[in-house]
């Protein structure tokens, strides 16, 4: 039992603990919980979209509301659901996997979380304050600069806040992996999930600033009368598209690479076999990340960039198939000759292979620019990116939840219910999206509020909507499973799957506050597996029991974020009334003042003493 859980606390104390925590595991849990909240929100928006499209010329919701729905669905799912949940895993698991007691910048970690969360809340406030953003999640100018009301202003400020938070998270993970790997944990002994965390963080670092600039330009145009996208004053709306996709394409790899990492862990664990071609997996990941920066204009084949640019970006895009193929075959080879256990998380991983392969295939097809003239901005594209983002990322997140739940929360999710959730979701997913490939080619562009009668699109849309309800049912079963597990299930052992390979399975479930009483000595890839094969039931310590230095909790990250949140409202509403500038400055004073306090007040952290540690079991 850890120190924290031995003491019973009141609700207020627990709340205060979470508001001030700098513990990477608690922050990870908060990322997951808030990401799940936004996932449900985005899911409801998806269902509303599908209900609107259940039959031709439906009037379930109005055209304006429909555009708000699609914009919020896309933005919420990408920025506030998928990415935070992956950041949650990175926080909760990566330090355990590399044998670290903490992350490099615990304070920054907390600040990053709060920025993400309040950014998401800010953007969703727009529903209640005159209408949500409605120019699509891609927010192409000049539609986004001309969009009336404050919807797009909330888009800009919400994403600016959460983007800053994500950037902090990325830098934090990079430094953590560079400086805080445990004794013997060389780079090439890192589990693949930690590797993908590292590479995704590099992508975050180099991709997000481009988006930050794009958002600033949009913000300046909308709020301060600049002319970046104002054609009459010499502006150019294509700049937005370039900046957006220079960020936007790496963004999809920021999502998918950690999911690849999760699957790599699961395939190895449940095949009871070492990951096949570990080195080539690492290099393939690097290659995907590198190429990911070279192909942004394949989102812009119809913009009129000319045949030379289109050819270069077409070939570059196709090239990504090579490292992705390497990964698929390595996973297959990992299973080959293994002893495969069909656990619920393994089911998600197995479902991922065909789903993602289809998504990858259509990706290559989209890369062929001549054919893309037909696919572009149709339901074919919708189908493609849901195959990679749902079939890859969401499957990965749900697999990861099933897999790491015991390590994060100390209880094993019910396997049977997990499998039911998988099958419902898997069937629903293919039902929803497979048909959309055809809908697109049959002449249905994306972001269509209605499709007309008698255009041969009715059956496909109906099937797609039915599928969406299956996915919803799968998600509900997953949630029920979580509730059920926490009322019933018994406490999980250290290594509940019995075939855990990496360091996190060597410590108690959930991990103690300080992760490792003594830092373990890593002797190779899959260190815990190595020890088990040598007949040891735990890791060999690399140090004697000593005092452990821990960072102090702080409320300042939340206060800083609240400051920026208030300032954002000031930015948004000063367009209507200059009195709001007071709000803007008040917010800034709170934020910068708190940053100054943080900077000037010494914070040396505290220690958990040797004597207390020795009382604890391992």
């Amino acid at each position, binding site marked *: 039992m850890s120190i924290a859980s031995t003491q019973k606390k009141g609700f207020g104390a627990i709340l205060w603990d979470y508001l001030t925590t700098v513990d990477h595991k608690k922050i990870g849990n908060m990322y997951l919980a808030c990401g799940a909240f936004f996932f449900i929100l985005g899911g409801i928006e998806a269902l509303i979209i599908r209900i609107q499209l259940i039959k031709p010329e439906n009037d379930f919701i109005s055209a304006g509301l429909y555009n708000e729905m699609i914009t919020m669905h896309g933005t919420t799912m990408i920025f506030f659901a998928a990415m935070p949940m992956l950041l949650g895993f990175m926080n909760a698991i990566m330090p355990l996997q590399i044998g670290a007691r903490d992350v490099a910048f615990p304070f920054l970690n907390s600040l990053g979380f709060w920025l993400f969360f309040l950014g998401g809340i800010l953007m969703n406030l727009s529903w209640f304050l005159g209408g949500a953003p409605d120019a699509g999640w891609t927010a192409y100018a000049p539609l986004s600069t001309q969009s009336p009301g404050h919807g797009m202003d909330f888009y800009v400020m919400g994403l600016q806040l959460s983007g800053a938070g994500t950037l902090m998270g990325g*830098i934090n993970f990079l430094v953590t992996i560079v400086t805080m790997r445990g004794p013997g944990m060389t780079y090439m002994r890192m589990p693949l999930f930690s590797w993908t965390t590292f590479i995704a963080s590099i992508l975050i*670092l180099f991709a997000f600033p481009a988006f930050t600039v*794009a958002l600033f330009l949009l913000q300046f145009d909308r709020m301060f009368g600049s*002319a970046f996208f104002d054609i009459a004053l*010499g*502006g*150019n709306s294509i700049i937005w598209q370039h900046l957006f996709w220079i960020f936007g394409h790496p963004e999809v790899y920021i999502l998918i690479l950690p999911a690849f990492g999760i699957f790599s862990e699961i395939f190895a664990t449940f095949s009871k076999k070492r990951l096949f071609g570990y080195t080539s997996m690492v290099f393939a990941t690097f290659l995907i990340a590198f190429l990911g920066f070279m192909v942004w204009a394949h989102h812009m084949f119809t913009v009129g960039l000319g045949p030379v640019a289109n050819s270069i970006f077409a070939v570059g895009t196709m090239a990504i198939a090579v490292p992705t193929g390497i990964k698929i075959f390595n996973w297959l080879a990992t299973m080959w000759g293994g002893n495969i256990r069909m656990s619920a998380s393994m089911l998600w991983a197995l479902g991922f292979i065909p789903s993602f392969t289809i998504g990858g295939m259509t990706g290559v097809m989209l890369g062929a620019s001549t054919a893309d003239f037909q696919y572009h901005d149709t339901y074919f594209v919708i189908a493609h990116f849901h195959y990679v983002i749902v079939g890859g990322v969401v499957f990965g997140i749900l697999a990861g939840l099933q897999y790491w739940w015991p390590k994060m929360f100390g209880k094993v999710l019910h396997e049977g219910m997990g499998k039911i959730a998988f099958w419902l979701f898997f069937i629903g997913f293919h039902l929803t999206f497979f048909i959309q490939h055809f809908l697109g080619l049959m002449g249905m562009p994306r972001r269509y509020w209605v499709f007309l009668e008698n255009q041969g699109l009715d059956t496909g849309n109906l099937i797609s909507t039915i599928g969406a309800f299956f996915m919803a049912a799968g998600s509900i079963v997953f949630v029920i499973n979580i509730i059920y597990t926490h009322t019933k299930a018994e406490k999980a052992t250290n290594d509940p799957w019995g075939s855990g390979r990496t360091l996190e399975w060597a410590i108690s479930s959930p991990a103690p506050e300080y992760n490792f009483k003594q830092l373990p000595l890593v002797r190779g890839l899959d260190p815990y597996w190595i020890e088990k094969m040598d007949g040891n039931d735990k890791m060999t310590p690399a140090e004697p029991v000593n*005092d452990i230095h821990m960072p102090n909790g702080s409320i300042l990250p939340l206060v800083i974020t609240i400051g920026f949140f208030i300032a954002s409202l000031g930015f948004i509403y000063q367009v209507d009334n200059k009195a709001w500038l007071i709000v803007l400055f008040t917010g800034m004073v709170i934020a910068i003042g708190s940053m100054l306090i943080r900077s*000037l007040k010494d914070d040396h952290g505290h220690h958990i003493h040797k004597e207390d540690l020795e009382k604890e079991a391992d």
Partner: protein
Amino acid sequence: MSQDFSLNPEIQDPAKATHEGKNKYIGLWFFLGGETVLFASLFATYLSLRNSTAGGPSSQDLFGLELVFVMTILLLTSSLTSVYAIYHMKNHDFKKMQLWFGITALLGLGFLGFEIYEFTHYITDYGFTFRSSAFGSAFYTLVGFHGGHVVFGLSWLIALMVRNAKRGLSLYNAPKYNTFAIYWHFIDVVWVFIFTVVYLMGMVS
């Protein structure tokens, strides 16, 4: 019990002697990687809009080399003085470090003063504002972002110097000074690019 942050003569580089110091050092380099992309995006935007004057003043009408040259000298020199400051930090000579950082701050303030003068000059004498044309928006955004970085850097430095004036150098604050110095060099490098891309190229073409 608290960690021991006091200096001892054996420490070569007080900025990187502690684990936290190393983290800050590496973290800052990563951060500057992101900053590079930020400025690259701003430069790209500027380059594609620098001829979009919408009938307003163009770069040839506006820019004068003398002023910008003085600004460049000021900022380059301030980078040099921060190197001296770090040199003294490595010799554990707190007073000299503070002195050289003080000079750095003064030069930075001088640069900022000239920049404010430059902007007001364009606005009052040419009516060239943030809103006049896409070129105007791009110019003030790019140069303004750099100026904003200078403001942030100066506030950071002054806060550090005031806070630690009476406490002297320790392993706790040395990394803070050091990361500031690297950040300051970065700002300087960005200015060199602005000088070339915005001013020199703007005067020729």
